[in-house]
């Protein structure tokens, strides 16, 4: 695919995304390859929802973290940071473009899920939005991790340390009906809303409404995006 030369950071990422054909095919196929067999199988709804949620979390966290640490290692990001572009804008663009590209990767698989498990349009919208919010939160975590390491291997390690408790709190596998402090914590984790919305898509009933699925993750993600963008000067500084 021939694209015009990029004149903004996000366009550069889009050009790179579409520029590597083989990688593009793999990126588009792997969510389908994981999610479609799960959606087509008869495994319990909670596990099917968990698989879709985990794929979204991993794609988001490792996508942003890996590409950022790679650019940090090259030194190219530090060079870009020495242009007059606002560092906050650069980080916001990194975040936004990674989320959108991850979302594009997941969208075909989500459509297959909705085709195989028809639900009302409002839940289709809610689940799609919840997955998008999951990608925003996961990418925020990836960018946050890149503040502390320039090694893609370390990203894996740190991501595991951060994601494990969040996945537990979200009730993907255990802690499905939390009480007390855990229940309060769960309300702040966007992954939990994706999990509930996907469970609904796969045929389970949860206590979460579509409205809650739209409102609460939006608030949490907005706060996360602002906080992550505030780390821009540190993230883009030269690593010595």
């Amino acid at each position, binding site marked *: 695919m021939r694209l015009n*030369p*990029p*004149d903004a950071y996000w366009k550069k990422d889009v050009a790179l995304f579409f520029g590597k054909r083989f990688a593009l095919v793999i990126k588009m196929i792997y969510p389908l390859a994981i999610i479609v067999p799960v959606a087509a199988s008869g495994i319990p709804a909670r596990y099917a929802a968990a698989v879709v949620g985990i794929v979204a979390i991993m794609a988001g966290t490792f996508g942003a973290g890996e590409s950022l640490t790679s650019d940090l290692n090259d*030194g*190219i990001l530090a*060079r870009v940071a*020495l*242009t*007059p572009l606002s560092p906050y804008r650069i980080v916001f663009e990194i975040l936004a473009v990674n989320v959108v590209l991850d979302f594009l990767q997941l969208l075909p698989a989500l459509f297959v899920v909705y085709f195989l498990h028809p639900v009302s349009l409002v839940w289709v919208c809610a689940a799609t939005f919840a997955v998008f919010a999951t990608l925003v939160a996961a990418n925020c975590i990836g960018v946050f991790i890149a503040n502390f390491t320039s090694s893609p291997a370390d990203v894996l390690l740190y991501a595991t340390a951060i994601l494990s408790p969040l996945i537990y709190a979200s009730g993907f596998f255990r802690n499905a009906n939390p009480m007390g402090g855990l229940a309060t914590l769960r309300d702040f984790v966007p992954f939990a809303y994706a999990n509930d919305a996907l469970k609904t898509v796969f045929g389970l009933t949860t206590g979460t409404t579509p409205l809650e699925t739209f409102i609460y993750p939006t608030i949490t993600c907005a706060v996360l995006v602002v906080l992550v963008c505030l780390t821009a000067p540190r993230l883009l500084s*030269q690593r010595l």
Partner: protein
Amino acid sequence: MPATLEAKNITCLYKGSGRGVTDVSLAVGRGEIFGLVGPNGSGKSTLLRVLSTALAPDSGSFSIGGADGLAERREVRARIGLMVDRPTHYGDLSGWANAFFFARAYGMEEEKANGTLAELFDCFALAEYAHDKAKTYSYGMGKKLALIEAVAHGPELLLLDEPSLGLDYTSQLAYQRKVRELAGAGAGVVLASNQVDEVEALCDRVAFLHKGRMLVEGTPEKLVSSLRGVKRIVATLRNPVEYAPVGEVAGVERVATEGRNLVVHCEDRPGLVADVVAGIVEAGGDIAELSVRRPNLEDVFVKLTGEALRSDEA
């Protein structure tokens, strides 16, 4: 000459090694080409990192075109053209796409960017490879691309770190012509290098950095003329020799090797060249070529510090 760059008492030391720069002050006027000369680890790159706003100094201040380097960093960045010592690019984008991205990041309009880049790619003989992926570029081509990115937006101050290292002869000439052209148009240039020939040919003023401190500053002519009475004898040898006996010849201050050349720095006196040749022959040297040269900036540095400017010297 109004100053484009004014730096006062810059100190920036790396926590781990303690190396960096200490109490460095300099001013570069509009249209002036200022050379920073020093061996590896002397603080040239650190000083450029500070001036490019990549590193905040521990103390001191600087301004570029009147904008404060600490308080108005984005304003300062917009006025700078920067070529770092190890340039990197987005390897999966074409050379043109990389240059276009940077031109637009510096605020150039699309049409102007296209015109200027076309001219620069021609100037640096990269037009043929403009649409090849940057990862396929050789080291020298990567340096040329970095130079294009540094100069395209017409900066007020150009910061160049070892710009000619790795460039072929034609590209070196093109780069020197472009730097002179930019200076002629009013840009200040700070050129960090230990290529003394290049610095002497290009720079209006030169400062020597040694162990993070500025030793001396002046025009190349003034610095070299301070070495009146010093000679530089260069003998090209067919065979490597143990050259210690040459160092014992009366008047010889320092002997060093540069590839196949034996370079002898000495105080001039009658019969000196004959004595040095005798010393080389006595040491077993087979002289293929011999020249007695006027001192250059390298000799000034040797005189000031007693150390070599380049790491391949003894």
